């Protein structure tokens, strides 16, 4: 089992120069690159002057990869994910989704956004829609006919493990089930990429373990590219092909680690010395940078 040993210099991400466009090498590989960030940076204007939320970041997320952004609070990991999701505009730098620029002439590009499915910390289901209608909301926005939406909802609810709850209101479901529905909603229009912002952060530890297993299974069955944000080291190492550790003030990439455990991983992998070795190293590094 190939577990990369951890050194703070072990940065396996290509460092692009801070150009507005991607260097040719990255462009050539764009078929295999789901998300490419070059010099993406964020400043916030506040009453106390500008705040540097995120120093220029270069990341290339491979197609089909499960990448986890890990970091302490205030490291800009959510800001980074929201920029990739098109919810916030970067102050500078370029974001490409499957080789297409996310922003062009100051406008978010619908084609690029259509490749992205977002899941938030809160399920954010609409309380006035049934679970079925919540899941197929993106299809309703695309004017898909009702029978097609019904069929899609049935399949997705099977996939995420909440079949039979089609006609329920969101408030009738537990937190974990609502989050499953939110994942189903993000999958409904079949985007290639899932962006998850601390999706299980509000759940209890047991539900969280179950959801991590479920996410791994869904990822295996759908073959999506997944970029997940968390502040849980265990969750990061358990889920990730690569863990990207961010350091705060301003947010920047500190370390990138390959995690090579065989798939599908069971919860028992967490008890292995190799797993613990990565966790301990990450924890040490986190206390250094936090």
């Amino acid at each position, binding site marked *: 089992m190939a577990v990369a040993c951890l050194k703070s210099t072990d940065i396996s991400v290509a460092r692009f120069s801070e150009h507005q466009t991607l260097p040719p090498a990255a462009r050539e590989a764009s078929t295999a690159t789901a998300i490419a960030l070059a010099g993406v940076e964020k400043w916030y204007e506040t009453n106390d002057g500008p705040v540097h939320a995120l120093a220029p970041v270069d990341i290339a997320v491979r197609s089909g990869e499960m990448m986890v952004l890990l970091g302490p609070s205030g490291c800009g990991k959510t800001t980074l994910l929201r920029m990739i999701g*098109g919810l916030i505009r970067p102050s500078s730098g370029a974001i490409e989704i499957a080789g297409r620029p996310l922003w062009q002439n100051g406008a978010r590009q*619908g084609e690029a956004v259509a490749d992205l499915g*977002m899941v938030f910390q*809160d399920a954010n289901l*609409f309380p006035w829609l049934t679970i079925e209608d919540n899941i197929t909301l*993106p299809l309703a926005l695309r004017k898909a006919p009702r029978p097609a939406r019904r069929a899609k909802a049935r399949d997705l609810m099977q996939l995420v493990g909440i079949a039979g709850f089609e006609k329920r209101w969101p408030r009738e479901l537990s*937190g974990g089930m609502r989050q499953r529905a939110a994942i189903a909603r993000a999958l409904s229009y079949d985007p290639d990429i899932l962006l998850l912002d601390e999706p299980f952060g509000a759940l209890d530890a047991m539900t969280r373990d179950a959801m991590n297993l479920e996410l791994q299974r869904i990822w295996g069955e759908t073959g999506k590219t997944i970029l997940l944000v968390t502040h849980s080291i265990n969750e990061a190492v358990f889920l990730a092909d690569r863990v990207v550790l961010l350091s705060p003030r301003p947010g920047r990439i500190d370390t990138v680690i390959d995690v090579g455990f065989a798939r599908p991983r069971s919860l028992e992998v967490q008890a292995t010395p190799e797993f613990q070795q990565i966790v301990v190293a990450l924890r040490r590094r986190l206390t250094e940078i936090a």
Partner: protein
Amino acid sequence: MTLVDTARPTAKRFDRRSLLPWITTPLLVALLIWLWQAYVRGSHISAFILPSPEAVWSAWLDLLASPRAWEHAATTVYETVIGFAWGLVIGVGLGVLIGRIAWLEKTLNPFIVAIQVVPKVAFVPLFVVWFGFGVTSKVIVSAVLAFFPILTNTVLGVKSVDIGHRDVMTSLNASRFAVFRRLELPSSLPYIITGMEVGIVLALIGAIVGEYLGGNSGLGYLLIARMNAFETDGLFAVMLQMTILGFIFYFGIGLLRRLLIPWHSSAGLEREP
């Protein structure tokens, strides 16, 4: 791996406390009528000042038997409903605009506050002067009175849309219209209906106050006519008729609430940790 999650049951529970008003309310009403009756008997008060409950009851039955009285009621219902409808359309329309467009709210807010503070019934004579003694002036009074609670509640509703819900629509690249139709409108609906509950009662008040001042039709007119004829029992009967009308309108909106927002119950919307 089995599911750890289980659905929360949402069975409605009827405990004794929720049944209590169904017993106490009729009892209290009966007690009040009995006290009224006892006072009229004991004090030998003039029937011009305070008629007995029986006299009011028979005057009310006369009212129900009189086709002319039904025409008066129909006039008042018409004025209230049409006035309320105008207040609703303009209130929701303007409310959505004000709630969404910050500069519009900043510009209009001083005027809205100013008009809120002015007792709007003060404008009734002016409307009579402008629009005559007919139905039109009463419809306008109704509309003006119903408009404000609907407007302010709509603004509040549109501004209370959940940020997370907005994120969902943004991440789906939804158009402005889609955001309005699929998010802002349903999310504001509980607020709008609360405004409507206040608005419908105010619309009825507007119609009646308008009728007091002029014209020859409507329950307000009938009430003044009874007063001028010293038919105090008839006056009470018209008041009862107005009260019943108010209840019907109010519960009509309550029914609308159940039909339009079944998802929004007092038990709903809270989140589990």
